[in-house]
């Protein structure tokens, strides 16, 4: 019985000490990418309402998003329909989101959707990173 108490005590202590020793990351990472599309527009990406970058065809961007509820929007101009993706971001986790331009008779939009890591890694081998924007381009 004593051994059992010792074992339980050791388990609790080791768990708590692990939690204390490892700092909890507060951010998650999103890899947002577009494959090559012919004659398509570049879209502006917003995270929780804040503009973070543009995203062109055949480019990816790495976004650090706060843990918790996250909204990623893709907009272009008044002729394009804004599209969003909502999710709960876990700290330290990596998410892959693929974007594809959809075109209709009266407008276009950038569809956003989660993809599996294996597929995203295959896609990303052919895709270049988005060039960082200059200070003048940012709002």
């Amino acid at each position: 019985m004593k051994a059992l108490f010792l074992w339980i005590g050791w388990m609790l202590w080791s768990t708590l000490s692990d939690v204390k020793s490892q700092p909890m990351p507060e951010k998650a990472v999103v890899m947002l990418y577009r494959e090559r599309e012919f004659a398509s527009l570049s879209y502006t990406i917003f995270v929780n309402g804040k503009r973070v970058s543009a995203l062109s065809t055949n480019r990816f961007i790495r976004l650090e998003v706060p843990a918790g509820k996250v909204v990623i929007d893709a907009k272009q101009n008044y002729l394009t329909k804004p599209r969003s993706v909502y999710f709960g971001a876990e700290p330290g986790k990596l998410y892959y989101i693929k974007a594809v331009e959809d075109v209709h008779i009266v407008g276009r939009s950038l569809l956003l959707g989660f993809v599996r890591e294996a597929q995203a890694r295959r896609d990303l081998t052919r895709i270049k990173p988005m060039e960082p924007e200059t200070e003048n381009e940012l709002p």
Partner: protein
Amino acid sequence: MKFLIPFVAWMLLGQCVLAQQSEPEVPPLDSMPIKSNYRFGLNIESGVFQSIMRLPHLQKFMEANGGETPVTADVHVHIGLGFRLNRVKATFQFSTPTTLLAQVPRNSTKWITRQQGGRQWGIQLGYDLVNGYARRWYVYSGVGVQSIDFTVYRRTGQTIPFGSILLNAPPGGVASLGIRNAPYIDMGIEMSFREKQPQSRGATTRIGYRHGLRQNDYRSDMYGLTDPISDRLSQFYVQTFFSVSDNFSRKTP
């Protein structure tokens, strides 16, 4: 002491359950809509196209005889029927000019050549080089025939009773002058919306060039002509139309 063991176990289990409940919503994987893949489709199209044509011999003839240069740009209306099998598309189309752009100078006393009509039909075969999520970009080629009709007249300034209009035809007027059934080959590019539903609607744009295969003699319904001048009917065009398609045999992704 015995009650302590279930209590500790309950504490550990509770922590696990609480941890699971406080986990944020897990995003669904594979939420990106897949690209549609209908193997076969029938489509009907209807729209307009703007064309511009060169008729150098007719223009030279009219200028040499003191006439206005004929306007050879026009807007046509067209209808088409076609089918698509995987990435290949075939279309039969018929068009006729509206003569909307065939306006002539109102006060000129020179000979005026005004386009009166015409027709055109042909078939096109295209292959979509770019097969995207939302659009297909075809390169196409085709064959067909086209006709064009003019009226040649000169203003006299006279006022006559309507009843005697048939007795007062001035000399030199040609009520019907044109080229009939001139064969051409057609080539161009087409951008159309991808069919995403069993019944899809979309808009399509074509930019192309029809090249006349040979010089064709001018004819008239009024006279038999000897030694007529001839022109090659070639034209650039920009075509925009709406299309409706029925699509079948969706492949499983």
